[in-house]
């Protein structure tokens, strides 16, 4: 690495000289060592460069291997990408995914090598070279997904050398999406190629205009200076069209970001809507219930990783009921041990629950340590879905759907179950409900447990987008109160509308005002709103309010 750093600062001819000298020496040693060595072709020479432990040499080696036409080229480049290309003993080896070791020069299996093998190091520059090389090497792969990947790689690298392979691939491609990707890749190359025909370039502009995304726009608005006037003006018009289209989609994209932020707020606040909204308890430890849910997810994943790795995709589903139980029982415990003695004394409740939140935080910090814990994302929640010029990430889609289902279930529970009936009765008139034979203290405990449990399952979802640390809850408590107060205390629909309004308003403001100012503007708007309507968006009416 030191050598690499030193080589970078040398003038190019010296570096070149060093490389030549080194290659020569290595080739010499190789020839001495192997009497039966085949004549070194360009492929073998390129392979030797991998042994130099220099990023520049590795980069050059990849390009040379890719154009060598050797049947092992794809294996070598893929092995390099995955850290399976090993050097040592004056040879380059590929470790197959099966564990077998083969000599990269001859393709023969190699027994157990004595001595140390090191994998060839890669950095971003090398990774880009690998991607470009694999692109041109796998254009004709029998696997459609790989061909698509290859076409995209060529589109990004715009490597003119890939053009003949690209033409061949287009001619025999039957799969429409792959064919489109191949054609855009060809268009990208032709547009910047100096000696391409006018008509070819104009057709390329057309293809890119149809593609219509940010990358196409970048290509069209950065034409090389040698482009003919006619092509320039066509590209300018196409770029204009794409800009208009992107601006149109931008609005939808912002709304989506708003909905997705809103659903996170909804998840965090919905448990509070029960404990604060219907029971009137200012529960400052609400955020810590979310944190407990997130740590439950972590524990579930730890167990699954160690004992049932096959179940990892379902880890979040398994964590949901457990998080509900853990956070819910802690909630019942808090209610029975502390809060029930403090009903009707909001200030004391606030201080007591604040204290509980600190105890829970420090407890988790002592048990799990102060550092973040890693919660993995199952494969089905990774990646993004492209609709028009919008990109929706799967984890956000999952969270939005999840938030709405939690909301719906909670609404049904409160509306149609006997527990829900009792909770509403106790909330509306505690003494009357008591006179009708409802055990109000038991209902209080259950309702608090329900609210806390819902906070726990919110923690499962939030573990996917935020850090799982003892501070997780703190960052959501203010937002949660804001949503519940804004939406109207004691009304689940208010919480839904409040969360969505705040989320969307925040995301509409952010591109213009920036994250910091946007948040300040939103807080001011809420303060003004609460002054005009102290009971929030959806105020409860009737005698319950006065009680």
């Amino acid at each position, binding site marked *: *690495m*030191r050598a*690499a*750093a030193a080589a*970078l*600062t040398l003038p190019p001819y010296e570096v070149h000289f060093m490389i030549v000298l080194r290659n020569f020496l290595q080739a010499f040693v190789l020839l001495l060592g192997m009497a039966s060595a085949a004549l070194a072709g360009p492929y073998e020479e390129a392979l030797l460069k991998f042994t130099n432990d220099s990023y520049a040499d590795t980069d050059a080696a990849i390009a040379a291997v890719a154009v060598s036409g050797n049947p092992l080229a794809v294996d070598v480049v893929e092995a390099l990408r995955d850290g399976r290309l090993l050097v040592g003993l004056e040879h380059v080896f590929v470790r197959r995914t099966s564990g077998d070791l083969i000599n990269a020069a001859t393709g023969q299996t190699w027994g157990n090598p004595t001595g140390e093998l090191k994998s060839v*190091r890669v*950095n*971003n*520059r090398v*990774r*880009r070279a690998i*991607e470009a090389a694999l692109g041109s090497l796998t254009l004709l792969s029998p696997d459609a997904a790989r061909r698509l990947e290859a076409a995209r790689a060529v589109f*990004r690298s715009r490597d003119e050398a890939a053009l003949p392979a690209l033409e061949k691939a287009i001619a025999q491609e039957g799969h429409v999406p792959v064919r489109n990707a191949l054609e855009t890749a060809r268009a990208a190359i032709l547009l910047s190629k100096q000696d391409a025909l006018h008509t070819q370039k104009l057709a390329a502009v057309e293809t890119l205009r149809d593609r219509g995304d*940010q*990358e196409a*726009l*970048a*290509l069209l*608005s*950065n034409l090389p200076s040698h482009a003919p006037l006619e092509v320039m003006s066509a590209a300018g018009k196409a770029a204009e069209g794409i800009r208009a289209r992107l601006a149109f989609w931008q609005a939808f*994209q*912002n709304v989506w*970001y708003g909905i*997705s932020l809103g659903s*996170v707020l909804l998840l965090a606040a919905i448990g509070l809507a029960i404990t604060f909204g219907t029971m009137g308890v200012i529960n400052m430890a609400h955020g810590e219930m979310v944190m407990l849910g997130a740590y439950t997810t972590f524990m579930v994943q730890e167990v699954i990783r160690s004992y049932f790795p096959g179940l990892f995709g379902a880890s979040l589903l398994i964590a949901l009921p457990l998080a509900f139980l853990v956070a819910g029982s802690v909630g019942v415990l808090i209610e029975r041990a502390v809060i029930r003695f403090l009903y009707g004394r909001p200030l004391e409740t606030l201080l007591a629950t604040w204290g509980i939140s600190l105890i829970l*935080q*420090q407890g988790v*910090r002592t048990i799990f340590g*102060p*550092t*973040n*814990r*890693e919660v*993995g*994302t199952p494969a089905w929640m*990774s*990646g*993004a879905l492209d609709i028009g010029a919008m*990109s929706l*990430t*799967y*984890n*956000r889609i999952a969270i939005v759907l999840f938030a709405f289902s939690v909301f719906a279930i909670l609404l049904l529970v409160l509306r149609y179950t006997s527990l829900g009936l009792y909770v509403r009765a106790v909330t509306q008139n505690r003494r009357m409900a008591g006179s009708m034979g409802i055990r109000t203290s038991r209902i209080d405990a259950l309702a608090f447990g329900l609210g806390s449990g819902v906070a726990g399952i919110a923690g499962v979802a939030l573990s*996917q*987008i*935020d*850090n*799982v*640390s003892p*501070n997780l809850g*703190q*960052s959501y408590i203010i937002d949660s109160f804001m949503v519940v107060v804004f939406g109207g205390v004691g009304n689940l629909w208010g919480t839904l509308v409040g969360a969505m309004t705040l989320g969307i308003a*925040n*995301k509409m403001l*952010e*591109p213009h005002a*920036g*994250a*910091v100012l946007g948040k300040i503007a939103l807080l001011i708007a809420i303060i003004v709103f609460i002054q005009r309507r102290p009971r929030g968006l959806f105020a409860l009416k009737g005698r319950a309010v006065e009680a």
Partner: protein
Amino acid sequence: MALAAAALVSSATAQAAQAEETIKVGVLHSLSGTMAISETTLKDVMLMLVEEQNKKGGLLGKKLEAVVVDPASNWPLFAEKARELVSQHKVSAVFGAWTSVSRKSVLPVFKELNSILFYPVQYEGEESERNVFYTGAAPNQQAIPAVDYLAKEEKVERWVLAGTDYVYPRTTNKILEAYLKSNGVKAEDIMISYTPFGHSDWQTIVADIKKFGSSGKKTAVVSTINGDANVPFYKELANQGVKATDIPVVAFSVGEEELAGIDTKPLVGHLAAWNYFQSVDTPENKAFIEKWRAYTKNPKRVSNDPMEAHVIGFNMWVKAVEKAGTTDPDKVIDAIVGIKVPNLTGGVSEMLPNHHITKPVLIGEIKEDGQFDTVWQTDDLVAGDAWSKHLDGSKDLVADWQTLKCGNYNTVTKKCGS
């Protein structure tokens, strides 16, 4: 009753006698609250260093004793606890603070009581105090070389400066902006974005970065995002498919400890600039990691840059005390300038007259296992600048506590105090 009183008195005198025999070292790191995530480790390092020094026979024939207090991530409490350490516990030196706010909060205390603080974290510079020794990186030992690396190796032409909204990112970005512009980068090729502490919804900003980066020019993100906000930021990058090969992110506040909470597979290739990586392959580092893991009884415990800074700072202080023959702050402050101790990356760091130290600069790429692979490093150690050469207000200032006895001497007006 009389017996009990006598026993009390004797135990009190015994304690006093014992107190006279030890040299006390203050440890001022948050063990609770938001910063506990980063600072708890540094407390452990200090305890290990003190224990180790005692095994070697202590200092000046006396045993060292660590006094640990918890300022609980609360900035005013830092000042109170610092005062408690110096005036009540009579510590000879304090090792502590992490955020710039906490450092600024304790500065007046150390000046007033004339004690010594070793500050181990990379910071924004623009400061040099007689009572403080800065063992972390100044901007010219981290930010500027990182930008140089990206411009040279990755051919970056467009820059996103993203940071948390407080003093360190704001000052660092001001310096970087001035530096980039002086190197011919146009204003439209620089995007600056600040976010609140603990920002967790990065959708819009990552989408903006993607948009900014798809103009055809190579783009990189220089991140001074602090603490917990990093995890959701990197998760969003991964989800929106921003790869290091397209838009690399170089971070100044993300180390091994922070990566421990993220699935690093989608982050492979993103960069960090530090003066130390756990993966650095030197005998000194190997020995340190072994000792550290044995001390914490955790075979997987990671090490990071501020830990190394404490190791260097502590060893420098020990040498300075030995040289001065006393723990008297004035004598130690005079003795420590010019002291050289080996760092963990194979070089020898020196305390400079401006109370900063010399360090190598390393650029590392994130690997799949959450460690860094050093892809570039400076040939020599870089001397820390207290005052940036790239800012108008500070380029004429120098700090020199040896000959000039001044932390902000203006070379143009020839006056101390800018």
